[in-house]
């Protein structure tokens, strides 16, 4: 038992660094997913028909494939075809981000569609252009409405980020496995890793709930919009 404890203590700095990599992976993917997600939503809701079809296909593709298959496809096949030597971390961020964009776009779409059409008409009748109405009237409301659904993306991405292990990104799980292959003690180290993930999960959720309370639209109660 004391051997196990010392294994955890001596490997702690290495594992904590891995925790940093995991958090970076999650944060950057969330950001990519957010930006691409909004672009996809706008294309799907307001774009011409062929753009709508394209977004549909994008969402169908990224939601229909397992994470691990996407990672393999991008890491072993698509990126090598471009001829650039892209590091595993970048591939993981791109895959997780593009995949999250597909899910996030459906959350935003639900929120936009839940805002009454009258808002758009009113904005247009005040002389705003279509784009102005979307940007200054629809989106500010839609983004606040979609926060409860959006908050779900954090735990999803956090647990999914561990799959980056399969292409060798040095995140928390990969490093735990490396330490185990040197020191043994698989049970204790894996459980330590699990506890770190669970703490990150609930710590992050609590943070998000605080933000949620702050930006809630007064009088809207807990109108939840989730992806359907």
């Amino acid at each position, binding site marked *: 038992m004391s051997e196990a404890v010392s294994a955890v203590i001596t490997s702690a700095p290495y594992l904590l660094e891995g925790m940093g990599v995991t958090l970076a992976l999650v944060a950057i993917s969330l950001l990519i997913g957010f930006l691409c997600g909004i672009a996809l939503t706008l294309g799907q809701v307001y774009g011409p028909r062929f753009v709508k079809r394209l977004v549909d296909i994008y969402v*169908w593709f990224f939601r229909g494939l397992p*994470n691990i298959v996407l990672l393999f496809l991008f890491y*072993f096949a698509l990126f090598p075809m471009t001829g650039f030597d892209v590091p595993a971390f970048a591939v993981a961020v791109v895959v997780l981000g593009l995949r999250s964009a597909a899910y996030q776009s459906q959350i935003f779409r639900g929120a936009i569609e839940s805002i009454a059409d009258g808002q758009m008409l009113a904005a247009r009748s005040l002389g705003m252009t279509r784009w102005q109405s979307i940007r200054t009237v629809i989106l500010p409301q839609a983004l606040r409405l979609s926060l409860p659904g959006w908050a779900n993306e954090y735990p999803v991405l956090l647990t999914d*980020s561990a799959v980056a292990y399969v292409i060798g990104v040095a995140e928390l*799980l990969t490093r735990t496995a490396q330490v185990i292959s040197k020191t043994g003690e698989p049970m204790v180290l894996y459980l330590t890793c699990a506890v770190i993930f669970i703490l990150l*999960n609930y710590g992050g959720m609590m943070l998000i709930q605080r933000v949620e309370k702050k930006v809630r639209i007064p009088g809207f109660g807990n109108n939840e919009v989730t992806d359907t």
Partner: protein
Amino acid sequence: MDAATNLTTNATALSGITDFLSETWAHILAEIPFWQDILLPALWDGLIVTLQLVALTAPFGFLLGLLVAVARVYGVRPVRWAAQLYVIFFRGCPLLLLLFILYFGLPSVGIVLGSFLSALIGFILCNSAYNSEYLRGALQSVKGGQMTAAQALGMTKLQAVRYIVIPQALRKALPGVSNEFIYLIKYSSLAYVVTVIELTGAAKIIASKYFAYFEAFAAVGVFYLVIVTIATLSINRLEKKYAIPGTGAGKGT
């Protein structure tokens, strides 16, 4: 201008195109044996293992999830806490890590499950934890008056839960539970990491052995897209059929 040169350039361009086409055609023909004799048979075998994993996980994951949900809503305090701890652990722990614990961790304390069983148990634990959340929400959304009314008619609490609350809750939880089923199809691919040769594992083996990464992963991607699309379409029909009229169910919450 010079019609003769024009004609010859046209002719060379044309022969360039036909050369390119016949080369591509030859390339495709050369690829056929690889697909027919190596890649597709391996993927079919993998598909069967994937379907086995999914078919075995889904019912157990659902029943265990229902049990945990009932424990969380109607259990006495220590049972409630235990159920909550269960959900926190199995939802918060990445599935891949859970599989590592079952497959690489447990043997160190003397429990050897083997790869298929490790994957299966991991999937059931994960699936049930997520399902229990949908089911708990549905159980709690059934109005309290229903329980009171059932007990006023002389039912015991257990009877009321079983005959009055659960049947209503199941229909409300259907969108969430069926969504989780789609996720299950996709995360069954993680079994590859603990050496179960399912779809993804089969593709990875062929890809590395024949250095055909694009072909293998594109093909396996098509397999998953087809399965997931079929499952989604049939679930949509199921949801429409069992939606409680007038509640607008069918929208996942």
